[in-house]
């Protein structure tokens, strides 16, 4: 069975909510929609206090090429435009909407019927994806239309769809593949048309045999789409690792990007969002969110409107347990610990993970014993112990030479370290510094 070639680790999977069907989350009293739910320039608000909006009304437009539009997830009245602490931990401008009823824009097709036919041109598809405000749903939130418009000179050869969900605990993509199988496949066909290729691979780890089976059954109806079962290994959902696992090509070090090896990678959630946008005229205003944790009463998967407070989802899953130590936006390997549970669900919120105090505690750091387990674990072929030590000594020339900018921050090194050294903390610090140095150097040229 295929997998990526360098490094990797095997965290306990803990997919507690894998057999919980997607439930529709009830509407909150108020939604908070940050203007920056994606990588790139923040969106620019189109509404002001007092404006009445419907579900699907565009309330902010893309603030540049790498940016994404934002649509209202509810019907009601804009109560204010203010700042809010979002899942990143930073205070960001956001649109607050008080919910009244549930009235949708008329252009949206609300029927459950599958629409297979798509007669749009590639340019029209990309324009629709852009208009719907779709971003990478795996968590990175890179605007989807940017990836569908290859830079001059680059040519796509295939579409690779990420159904790996290698983060422990998370099951949103898994459920989506089981419950929206054909929709995803139509979405993939549309993506293939958009980048003018006739081959697509959907990579799924073999800890989801039901999803692999179901997708394989339906995929025969869609020419050019191949389901690729993958051996379970973290971080297989990393874009570069996935490309290596599926087609055996390695994207060179930055600034190279996947298109340089002919691949366009999108998440299954993104493919589903593309289906809805193109076939149903439905912009991106809701997503599946896994709410999970060992101490939580009912780990669940919720179809949630953007802007719903996380606290509401936790409540619906049984309430915040007494022994909660950490609440994480995303999975345990790459998610962000939150300082408050009143943050809004955004386009990149794949999960909410509750950890009890015992799980949340970090082990005490001991001296590096040079066991080289981090070197074996690094999926990018770097030497994490060296990058961390050199970063802690502020030796920026050295860390740049040692390839720190290639680090994908997957955390495999720290996960595997017998001495519990906080390597990734230092590597992130170094990446930040070296990134700034490189930008300054390029600006001078």
């Amino acid at each position, binding site marked *: 069975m295929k997998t990526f070639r*360098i490094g990797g*680790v095997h*965290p306990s999977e803990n997919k507690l909510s894998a057999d919980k069907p997607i439930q529709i989350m009830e509407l909150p009293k108020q939604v908070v929609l940050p203007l920056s739910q994606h990588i790139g320039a923040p969106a620019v608000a189109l509404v002001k206090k007092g404006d009445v909006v419907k579900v699907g009304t565009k309330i902010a437009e893309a603030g540049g090429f790498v940016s994404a539009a934002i649509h209202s997830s509810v019907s009601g009245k804009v109560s204010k435009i203010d700042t809010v602490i979002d899942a990143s931990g930073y205070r960001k401008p956001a649109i607050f909407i008080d919910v009244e009823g549930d009235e949708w824009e008329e252009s949206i097709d609300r029927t459950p019927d599958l629409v297979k036919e798509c007669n749009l041109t590639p340019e029209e598809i990309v324009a629709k994806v852009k208009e719907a405000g779709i971003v990478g749903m795996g968590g990175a939130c890179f605007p989807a239309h940017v990836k569908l418009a290859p830079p001059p000179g680059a040519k796509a050869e295939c579409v690779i769809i990420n159904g790996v969900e290698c983060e*422990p605990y998370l099951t949103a993509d898994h459920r989506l593949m089981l419950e929206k199988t054909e929709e995803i496949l139509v979405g993939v066909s549309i993506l293939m048309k958009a980048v003018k290729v006739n081959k697509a691979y959907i990579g799924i780890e073999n800890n989801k045999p039901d999803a692999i089976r179901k997708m394989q059954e339906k995929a025969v109806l869609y020419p050019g789409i191949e389901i690729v079962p993958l051996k379970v290994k973290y971080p297989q959902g990393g874009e570069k690792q996935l490309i*290596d696992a599926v087609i*055996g*090509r*390695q*994207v*060179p*070090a930055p600034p*190279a990007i996947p298109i340089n*090896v002919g691949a366009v990678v999108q998440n299954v959630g993104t493919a589903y969002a593309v289906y809805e946008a193109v076939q149903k005229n439905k912009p991106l205003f809701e997503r599946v969110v896994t709410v999970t944790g060992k101490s939580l009463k009912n780990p669940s998967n919720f179809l949630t409107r953007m802007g719903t407070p996380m606290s509401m989802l936790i409540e619906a899953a049984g309430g*915040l347990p007494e022994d*909660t130590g*950490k*609440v*994480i936006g995303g999975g*345990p*390997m*790459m*998610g962000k*610990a939150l*300082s*408050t*549970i009143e943050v809004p669900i955004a386009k990149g919120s794949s999960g909410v*993970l509750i*950890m009890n*105090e015992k*799980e*949340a*505690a*970090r*082990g005490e750091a*001991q*001296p590096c*014993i*040079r*066991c*080289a387990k981090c*070197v*074996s674990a690094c999926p*990018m*072929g*770097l*030497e994490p112990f060296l990058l961390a030590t050199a970063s802690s000594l502020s030796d920026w020339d050295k860390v740049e030479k040692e*390839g720190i900018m*290639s680090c994908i*921050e997957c955390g495999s090194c*720290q*996960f*595997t*370290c*017998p*001495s*519990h050294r*906080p390597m*990734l*903390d230092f590597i*992130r610090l170094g990446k930040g510094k070296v990134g700034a140095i490189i930008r300054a150097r390029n600006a001078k040229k």
Partner: protein
Amino acid sequence: MSKSLIVSLSPHVHGGDSVQKNMYGVIIALVPALLVSFYMFGLGALVVTLTSVIACVFFEWAIAKFILKSKRTTILDGSAILTGLLLGFNLPSNMPLWIIIIGALVAIGVGKMTFGGLGCNPFNPALVGRVFLLISFPVQMTSWPVTGQHLSYLDAETAATPLALMKSAIHGDASALSQLPDTLDLFLGMNPGCVGEISAVALLLGLVYMLWKKIITWHIPVSIIVTVFVFAGIMHLVNPEVYASPFTHLFTGGLMLGAIFMATDYVTSPMTHKGMIIYGVAIGFLTVVIRLFGAYPEGMSFAILIMNAFTPLINTYCKPKRFGEVVKK
């Protein structure tokens, strides 16, 4: 909300590996060899290993507390116990207590704590202790009790080791090689030697355990063993009258103990697989060179210490293969 949440950077989970698990894992892997040594050398083996372990742990504790004045105690991490065990394994079973204690002081004091303790020492501490003793007390370090004397310690009857016989053969004693025990006896451990080094089969069991528990990888032990076998084998083919068979080389002296437990010490060995193979091949080569052409009958300790010195250099030049250096399969 009344309670505050813990905020830290990802990853939020840990694989559960620890320094202790690795150290105690190696100690468990040494148990078969320990049992064989008790069976072969009886009381002497027990006294020597116990003294060595207790002395090493004591010195680590005393130096940390009274000289470095560090608040954290490191004696429970298992590394001092391991150094003590390995030092004891590298001594003859009739070694007087006071010499063992000096060896432990040099191993832990000079070999490890001087450099800052666990993780910072450039040379394998147990080998630093052993080589210090070998140079300082050559007579005591080269008198080897015969196996099977269960109740004797200092008064044990001694005999020449296979390695000494092999050296005499090289120096012109034509009958020396014929006095060697047969290969199966060497493999099982029925020959004079240091406490823990005699039984190749027990040490190989330890290797299997460490590979299974993923404590070490195969690269260092296998590259040493293969190199010694090939190099010694070529010499044997050239002149079997003078040079012993490669199997004899593999199963005598500290070769297995060194290849499996001493050269694989995390702290003093290279970080990449490529580096580990270079390091292993060099150790195997140097060992045979010393055994066949050097002044000492055994070269394992020296070979490992010499290559310990090269480890930083190997680390500088042997980088792991970065992602993206291979574009196509």
